């Protein structure tokens, strides 16, 4: 097996292949990449599993010789489309990192407006920028893996990278946030009158928001087999307005609502 890097890592005596990875960002806040740099306690271990060859937020050096591309952000401009296609050609594995890359994220809220030219004018005024419809990566190129979340959960990214290094299969939770929320012994936020998308949103965040008494906004998109229609009904029966429900469902773009489908 080919290895690279000076201090070759082994697992149970078997040398590990250290893949060359690059991080890129498109239209986003770059917060997902920051999350990866945030966990100082395990950062060195994390960096010893992969060889980072490009990471604008963290280092000056950069190389185009990479195998795995972690891409944060949504695609809103024509030049972004071209850049993304180039990355796709070079990368063996393309990973959508975070909700913007996976579904458009918060950015895609502007897709709600029918007249995007007017939006551009209102936001940028005299200094217009080339920024159109917000699209997730998978609208343009083949995405091999999605890591959900706004921001991504560092522990989940670490687990994925460990399994990648060890050649283990990568499995994201298929169940909703409620499973983690109950395991964390939280009081259901609906009991206290707060709306929450925990019953339909994919887990993996360890019920981050409900742990802090904030209802889930669905940043990780729908769990497998999410019963979105029933969730709308439940929230309506509990007295939440259509606006409140749609605000939640549309915030990160993970839930395809009828209104949005009409525009695409």
């Amino acid at each position: 097996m080919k290895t690279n890097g000076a201090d070759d890592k082994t697992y149970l005596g078997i040398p590990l292949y250290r893949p060359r990875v690059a991080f890129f960002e498109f239209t986003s806040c770059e917060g997902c990449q920051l999350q990866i740099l945030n966990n100082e306690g395990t950062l060195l271990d994390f960096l010893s599993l992969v060889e980072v060859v490009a990471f604008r937020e963290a280092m000056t050096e950069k190389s185009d010789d990479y195998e795995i591309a972690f891409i944060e952000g949504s695609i809103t401009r024509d030049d972004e489309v071209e850049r993304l296609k180039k990355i796709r050609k070079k990368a063996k594995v393309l990973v959508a990192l975070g909700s913007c890359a996976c579904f458009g994220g918060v950015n895609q809220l502007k897709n709600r407006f029918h007249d995007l030219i007017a939006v551009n004018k209102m936001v940028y005024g005299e200094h217009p920028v080339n920024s159109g419809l917000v699209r997730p990566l998978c609208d343009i190129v083949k995405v091999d893996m999605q890591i959900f979340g706004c921001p991504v959960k560092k522990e989940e990214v670490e687990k994925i990278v460990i399994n990648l290094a060890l050649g283990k299969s990568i499995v994201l939770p298929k169940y909703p946030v409620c499973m983690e929320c109950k395991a964390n012994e939280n009081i259901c936020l609906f009991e206290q009158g707060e709306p929450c998308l925990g019953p339909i949103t994919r887990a993996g965040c360890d019920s981050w928001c409900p742990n802090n008494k904030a209802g889930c906004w669905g940043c990780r998109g729908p769990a497998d087999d999410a019963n979105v229609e029933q969730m709308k009904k439940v929230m309506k029966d509990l007295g939440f307005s259509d606006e409140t429900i749609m605000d939640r469902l549309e915030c990160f773009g993970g839930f395809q609502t009828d209104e949005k489908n009409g525009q695409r």
Partner: protein
Amino acid sequence: MLFKTFAKEELKILFEIIAAHNRVVGPVEKARDRNNKPIYAFEDVHEFHDIQLNYTTTKLPAKRFFLPFKEDLSTFKIEDDKWQKSIDYNIDRPVVFWGLHACDINALNKLDKVLLHSVYPMPYYAAKRKNMFIIGIDCEPQPFCFCRSMGADTALHGFDLFITDLGEKYFVEILTDTAFNFLRELKTADALEEDHILYMKKVDEKKKQFTARIDTTDLTKILDMEFQSEVWHQWGDKCLSCGSCSNVCPTCYCYGVEETVNIDLKGARKTKMLYSCNVIDFAEVAGGHNFRPLRHNRLKYRYYHKHRGFVEAFEESLCVGCGRCGETCLAGITVSEVIASVKTGSKE
């Protein structure tokens, strides 16, 4: 069984004797809901006045103290090409449960049948269950309680002592010598005939207060016949598949296991996580085939395990009628309504 009575103020003395050397878990008020009603939970207690003896029910059962939601089954130390496994049953001292209702005691008795007295006992459960000390307490039926229908409104065994409030004093059933020895340090009196009469009266009054019930007559056979019933589809359409019913159930014990390697590659762990049969990948097997991809099937099998399969194996249901699942279900799916609909063939 021995019957005693003691004055109400003696209970605090009993707490101080027990809590001086033991870990005590009891019902406490954790928060208030949107209608300003208390939300109770089983937590570690250090002061007697924190215990809410007249609690209605807790949102989560006491399960996490003997079947934790997440628990390491084993950990591994890895050095070069060698590895060393260590197993910890994750219990450092026995727990005293202060104030379990009959339903929750019966839930433990049911779990014992599977996890303690079966061919392959689960040591992680057994280690926590053994030496557990349980003080039961009488309760008032809530609108969602159907324990009486499940034969779980009284506990005949599975506790050390059970106290019932007779107004002026407590009526105490003593089942173990541990309990007897603790009570020797209190001022107790033998239960007189009048105490027994008062106790029976209290039990009779309680029976009359139940409003929720399910008819379990021939239920296993009815479930057999109604396997293809349309009502399962109707409930399946409602179900959110969130798994909360199982997580709040005092008798759900199904779990998944995950193996993870630490980021420094010097350690690994095998972790057990309580799962729910209503969750999408519960019946997904190696290779990716899912035996129950449909929501209504998963919901149905949950009922079949509780009310049919378990009955066939152990001659009793795996449901104690605590009503927690129906209370927690945002879609409003309750056991009594589901069972009734299977019988009538209609959800409404």
